[in-house]
């Protein structure tokens, strides 16, 4: 996959999933990537509202939300026995289920698929835990090349303040406590997130991410994202030519109908 960047959108990075027809997909696949607590889901909520207002059908999806493996992953994370390879492959299973049963059918139907993280986060977590990058990249090779990957790039110290101010506590898995990267959760968080960010930064040039400075305000980030997505030239509906301000919930419902 040395030429990952030169692949066309909706081609597979490696071998396509067995028995799945990936031809004639007419939708758009848009990925939001970034470390934990960087503000991805806030953006996805707003992007969805905006895109639906514009008349586009949107599917939003994210890690560990598959019908097949979502619950299993949640259960496994409650215990204290989830090893790094097992975790990686559980997430890969979850991703494959969503890709084959949600993402590809939606793309075939012409939807815009907004995904909160993608194979890149699965790979980054594996690499941060010392797994071989070539191994996990090959495992995830059945993934489709997105039209765009927006990488909300932050420094570790920004994440720390977001976690402490926003959530008030460090999360076990976000701190990489399964690997005890540090003496306590803070130290482990810093070391683990540094490794994660390092892995994502490396992927950024390799896979052609569009980097967005996550230190900006949510509003600024949103308009930046909107500008980028507009450039993707998604088919217009009923002359809704220009990006509109974030619509109120009522008008969103009207747009869906």
């Amino acid at each position: 996959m040395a030429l990952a960047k030169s692949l066309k959108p909706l081609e597979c990075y490696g071998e396509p999933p067995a028995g799945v027809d990936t031809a004639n997909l007419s939708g758009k696949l848009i990925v939001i990537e970034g470390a934990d607590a960087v503000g991805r889901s806030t953006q996805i909520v707003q992007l969805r509202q905006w895109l639906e207002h514009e008349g586009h059908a949107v599917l939003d999806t994210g890690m560990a939300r598959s019908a097949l493996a979502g619950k299993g992953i949640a259960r496994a994370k409650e215990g204290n026995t989830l090893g790094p390879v097992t975790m990686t492959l559980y997430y890969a299973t979850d991703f494959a289920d969503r890709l084959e049963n949600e993402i590809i059918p939606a793309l075939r139907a012409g939807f815009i698929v907004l995904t909160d993280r993608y194979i890149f986060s699965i790979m980054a977590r594996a690499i941060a835990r010392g797994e071989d990058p070539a191994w996990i990249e090959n495992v995830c090779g059945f993934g489709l090349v997105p039209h765009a990957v927006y990488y909300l790039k932050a420094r570790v110290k920004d994440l720390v303040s977001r976690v402490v101010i926003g959530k008030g506590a460090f999360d076990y898995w976000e701190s990489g406590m399964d690997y005890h990267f540090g003496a306590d959760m803070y130290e482990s968080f810093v070391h683990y997130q540094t490794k994660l960010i390092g892995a994502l930064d490396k992927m950024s040039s390799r896979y052609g991410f569009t980097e967005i400075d996550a230190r900006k305000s949510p509003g600024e980030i949103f308009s930046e994202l909107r500008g980028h997505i507009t450039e993707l030239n998604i088919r217009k509906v009923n002359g809704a030519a220009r990006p509109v301000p974030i619509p109120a919930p009522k008008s969103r419902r009207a747009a869906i109908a």
Partner: protein
Amino acid sequence: MKSLSTPHRHRGKLIIVEGIDGSGKSTQISLLSRWLRSQGYAVAFSEWNSSPLVRQTTRRGKKKEMFTPTTFSLIHATDFADRTERYILPLMRAGAIVCADRYAYTAFARDVARGVNRQWVRNLYSFAIRPNIAFYFRTPLDVALSRILGGRDALKYYEAGMDLKISRDVEESFKVFQGRILQEYEDMIEEMGFHVIDATQSIEDQQKQMRAVVKREIGRSLRTQVLRAPVLEQNPEHASGAR
């Protein structure tokens, strides 16, 4: 991470059995593990598809027929990873003999028979520990089929490859699917260094051959490296064992 293709350096030993359904491999590995245990060795047993962490997901997927070839392959690899990380690897490091009923080669045969890319599934399992001995129970398709079809009332959906829509007839689908798996096994013999056991022989003859292979291949290191309970050591020469 090329551990499946390079010999491991752990104190313990890994012995695995492979073959199509109805080849008799489970009977044989069970006999072999009891024979080793009777000599006082620390013996652990790991069965395909048995991780408690993954079990409910697999069960759910099978029951609701949710699997595609890719997710079927990945969930079995997840199961295998859990058993490797939590069970097989630490026990091997501690010096146990781990006996496994089916190993990564089952995925190599079965997933490829389902249409999954051969190289992809090989890479998927590259974290697996290379076995010291891998037995392959060679069985002609019709022999295996008569054992399976005679012994059980209903063939299971995925076991019969019904997800591949080869045939609406379960038995017909099972035959075609198992035939493909058999071919994959046969093609792997040399690449993976399988010890081939003719599974049409009597149970006793097969077991005799297995024990001979074990003595020849790892007999010396069994005495020097593997964990062994000193109390049970009466007369190893005559501890023929299989109860």
